[in-house]
């Protein structure tokens, strides 16, 4: 472990030297980064770059081929209650009502007796979350009776009642129409302002990533290193840039401001354009929680900055 990684090992989420492949295809290559508590960290990258794979690794749904993954200093070993999830779909249980879904995090681990005893208390707590999501009136409906945006609000309430250390979201607004999507982005930001929880937000939508994130991590397979591009070199996605962004809730109009557009263009060029190949030593990883451990063959000697 080098110096950089030692200083970030105390971060809430810490990934180091993480590799993941499916069969012959290397998906994630030497992923390094850490996330500090209270960060709204969005992860963006071209489609198929391995964002969802990274999500599943952090979740513990799949194991990395190699590397170290920690949540709050503990190695990740399967999905657990310290990481709540909101998926794009299938987050809610169709056979339960909205309020039953919202209080599931309380009722699911409890035995029959405790469930009977504390049902009222839990219901009230879940109701508070639903009220904040503007869904109190729909508590006794089933998910299929709600619109897509409402379903995602319930899914967020359902995850939050567990007070997870990290709220993990995988394209949570990807199936919504543009207007609902913006409303949900504002809703999530307001919620984050109040709670300052740690959110790991995976999306392929650049504007969404920049608008929401207090930090944007860009994952991409378009880069180069000292191994070149010979036939034997397998290349998976890695963190190619990492930005710290202002954390204030802004109107969605900010998406049209020049700075916003410029940043989006820069990320698109670096991360999404297959012809732009940065060398691994040139990555913009100036975020304080960012670090990089390179293999000797990836960067053989000290290089001049370009």
């Amino acid at each position, binding site marked *: 472990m080098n110096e950089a990684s030692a200083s970030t090992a105390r971060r809430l989420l810490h990934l180091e030297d993480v590799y993941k492949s499916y069969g012959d295809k290397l998906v994630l290559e030497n992923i390094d980064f850490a996330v500090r508590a209270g960060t709204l960290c969005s992860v963006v990258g071209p489609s198929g770059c391995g964002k969802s794979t990274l999500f599943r690794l952090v*979740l513990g*749904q799949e194991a990395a081929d190699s590397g170290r993954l920690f949540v709050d200093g503990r190695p990740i070993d*399967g*999905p*657990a*209650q310290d*990481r*709540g*999830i909101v*998926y794009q*779909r*299938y*987050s*809610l*249980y*169709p*056979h339960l009502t909205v309020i039953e879904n919202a209080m*599931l*995090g309380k009722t*699911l*681990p409890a035995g029959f007796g405790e469930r009977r005893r504390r049902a009222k208390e839990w219901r009230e707590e879940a109701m508070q979350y639903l009220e904040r999501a503007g869904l109190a009136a729909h508590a006794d409906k*089933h*998910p*299929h*009776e*709600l619109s897509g945006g409402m*379903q995602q609000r319930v899914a967020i309430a*359902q*995850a939050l009642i*567990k007070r*997870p250390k990290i709220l993990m979201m995988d394209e949570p607004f990807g199936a919504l129409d543009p207007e609902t999507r913006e409303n949900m982005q504002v809703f999530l930001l307001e919620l984050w302002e109040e709670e300052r929880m740690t959110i790991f937000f995976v999306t392929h939508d650049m504007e969404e990533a920049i608008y929401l994130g207090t930090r944007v991590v860009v994952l991409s397979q378009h880069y180069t290193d000292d191994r070149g591009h010979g036939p034997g070199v397998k290349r998976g996605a890695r963190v190619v840039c990492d930005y710290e962004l202002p954390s204030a809730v802004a109107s969605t109009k900010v998406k049209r401001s020049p700075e916003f557009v410029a940043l989006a263009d820069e990320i698109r060029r670096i991360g999404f354009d297959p012809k732009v190949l940065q060398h691994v030593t040139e990555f913009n990883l100036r975020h304080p929680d960012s670090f990089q451990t390179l293999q000797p063959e990836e960067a053989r000697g000290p290089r001049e900055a370009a």
Partner: protein
Amino acid sequence: MADAAAHARSAPPSLLAPLRRNFLLGLLPFLVVAAVYFFASQQRLAENPQDKLLPSLAQMADAVWQHAFQPDPRTGDYLLLADTWASLKRIGIGVGLAALAGLLAGINMGLLPKVRMLLSPFLTFLSMVPPLAILPILFIALGVDELSKVALIFLGVFPVIARDLMMSTAQIPREQIVKAITLGATTTTVIYRIVLPQVLPRLIDAVRLSLGGAWLFLIAAEAIASTEGLGYRIFLVRRYLSMDVILPYVLWITALGFAADWLLRQVVLRRYRWYVAGGSA
């Protein structure tokens, strides 16, 4: 003018008309069959009053009266009641056990790939065996009592239900299960609180679909070796060409099947609104 507009349409309007329930239209085939039957019956009976092939309504009513409301002189039983009870007991136990075993096997196969690999080929094989072909084996192995009849229904119905539930369990998105674990579920709670409640309406539907086959197996088994039961009775009186008994019995069996189907459908409609709505969030 209106005609010209109608001709201009490419599809005939009747194909595009909204589907409205039309009770009378549905009744029509029944009325036609009944009319043809009673006309033919009347013709035959006019020629030969002893004719047994197409009994009149009065003859059938008399037979129903004898079987349903008069105790049998030999046993003192009300035959229709005793037959119905015997048959329903067999089909109920057979289908009930098959549903229970199918639920257990289906959920385990749907959730656990190892169990699926273990059981799936055998279950496929079992579902391909025509159940009636193994009836003799059952009679030889289990005797001609109740057990072999229940076993026939079980063997005919179980593979269908198990495969159906395996598929609906496997269709539950993986995300739901991972999410349940992050909400604090264990393997047991995933099965009992997430999977089971979601496949229960599917189980009822699978039972509804398999009831037709179950009646077939029941009647076949009763026809071959039994001393009571609806199937036994119609095959018994066949020897005397007693169409006046057979026809009401067939209608009665149909009514029982229809009632069972309707009842199960009502349970699903009332208790599982989310399932009927195709709700998958």
